């Protein structure tokens, strides 16, 4: 048992011969915002994807809200309703309108009435500043707008945990701010968040904790101020100086 929102023990994941996650131990408290950093290929995305079972671990334990999840026995569709995910490339459904994207899962999965879902969806769109785009198709939106729709779409399932995999990496620099602002609002409302990002400003300002990964292991973890200003491990120092 565990009273954490997420708890991961001795998690291992390989792709064929490639051992990507090595004995990962990791916890996230309720309302905590954790930022994952690390070099390309260090396993950040894989780690995140193991938390909502888009990737299946090879060994180890994953607890979501105190319950150990067994992919063979548990209904992963229900687990995923509690764990929203936002992708680098948005992955909006191009054949549905913005509002259509947002109401799709509530109506199809949870059986929410269309009228109710539209009402809730419109509210969510207002919240991410896109109330006036409800009837547009995604192809008409900028990257930043697309990503905010993707956030609204994930929130429509009322998840208790949100995972973000480099949500701003595919955006033009001038569009990064609006997405980070939306995420910051979410953090302030108490959402539990795990965020993979290269935006160190966001990490400093919003994260409760920063986790540095290298070569499939968690090398160091700490409050942003401590980790950025006084990294204990040489690896962390080297990584930080390479990106700052």
């Amino acid at each position: 048992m565990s009273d954490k929102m997420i708890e991961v023990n001795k998690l291992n994941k390989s792709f064929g011969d490639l051992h990507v996650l090595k004995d990962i131990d990791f916890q996230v408290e309720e309302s905590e915002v954790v930022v994952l950093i690390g070099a390309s290929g260090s396993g950040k995305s894989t780690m995140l994807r193991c938390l909502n079972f888009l990737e299946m671990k090879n060994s180890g334990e994953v607890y979501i809200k105190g319950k150990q999840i067994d992919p063979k026995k548990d209904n992963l569709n229900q687990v995923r309703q509690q764990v929203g995910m936002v992708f680098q490339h948005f992955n909006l459904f191009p054949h549905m309108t913005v509002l259509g994207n947002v109401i799709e899962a509530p109506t199809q999965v949870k059986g929410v009435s269309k009228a109710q879902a539209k009402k809730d969806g419109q509210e969510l769109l207002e919240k991410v500043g896109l109330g006036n785009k409800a009837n547009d198709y995604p192809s008409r939106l900028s990257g930043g707008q697309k990503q905010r729709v993707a956030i609204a779409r994930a929130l429509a399932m009322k998840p208790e945990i949100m995972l973000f995999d480099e949500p701003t990496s595919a955006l033009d620099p001038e569009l990064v701010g609006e997405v980070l602002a939306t995420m910051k609002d979410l953090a302030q409302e108490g959402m539990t968040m795990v965020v993979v990002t290269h935006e160190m400003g966001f990490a400093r300002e919003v994260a409760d904790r920063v986790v540095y990964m290298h070569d499939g292991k968690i090398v160091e973890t700490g409050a942003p101020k401590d980790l950025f200003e006084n990294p204990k491990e040489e690896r962390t120092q080297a990584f930080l100086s390479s990106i700052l």
Partner: protein
Amino acid sequence: MYLYSANFWTALIDSRGIFFEAAQMTLALTAVSILIAIFIGLLFAFMKISKIKPLEWLANIYIYVVRGTPLIVQIFVFYYGLTEIWMISGFWSVALGLAFHNGAYIAEIFRGAIQSIGKGQTEAGRSLGMSGNLTMRRVILPQAFRRALPPLGNQFIIGLKDSSLAAFIGVSEIFAVATTQGANTFDYMTWLLVSAVWYLILVFLLTLVVSAIEKKMAVSD
């Protein structure tokens, strides 16, 4: 001897009644066979991308056989095979033969279209708690169908023209009527040209329908 004037234009106009009927037969044959072929095509496309190996093999064999044998042979196999065991009409045996044939090509069209939709779409659906089937039905298939439309339209046109082979089974569609007229008048060339005009008209109409559907589905661009 000449029921109709040997003049092409007079022939075309004077015979419009019987060819209009024959065109309806051609259209019925095409519509029925294409509808069944779409169903077969979807089924075999799913079998081909299925993780269950025997299903994939079965689909491969089917597609291999259809591609590797002449359509006229397939149609006659269906005709002699089915009429014997099933007491089925010539029309239906040809319709099923054409469906069997077009189904294989449509299966490949659907498979290609489904596989061309990026993995991110499936992941987005699954991450929202949608099941694999629901994601396929609501997210992947609508996009795949849209992408499949141009090659599908092409296949429909091929199917329409291939329905002329039903003439060899005695179905009175356009080509059958043309050859009968030709035999009666000893003027094959005129009547073949008349049939060609009718096929062109039908293909033109079919093209209009397909592009109307394409336009309708393009609203999200």
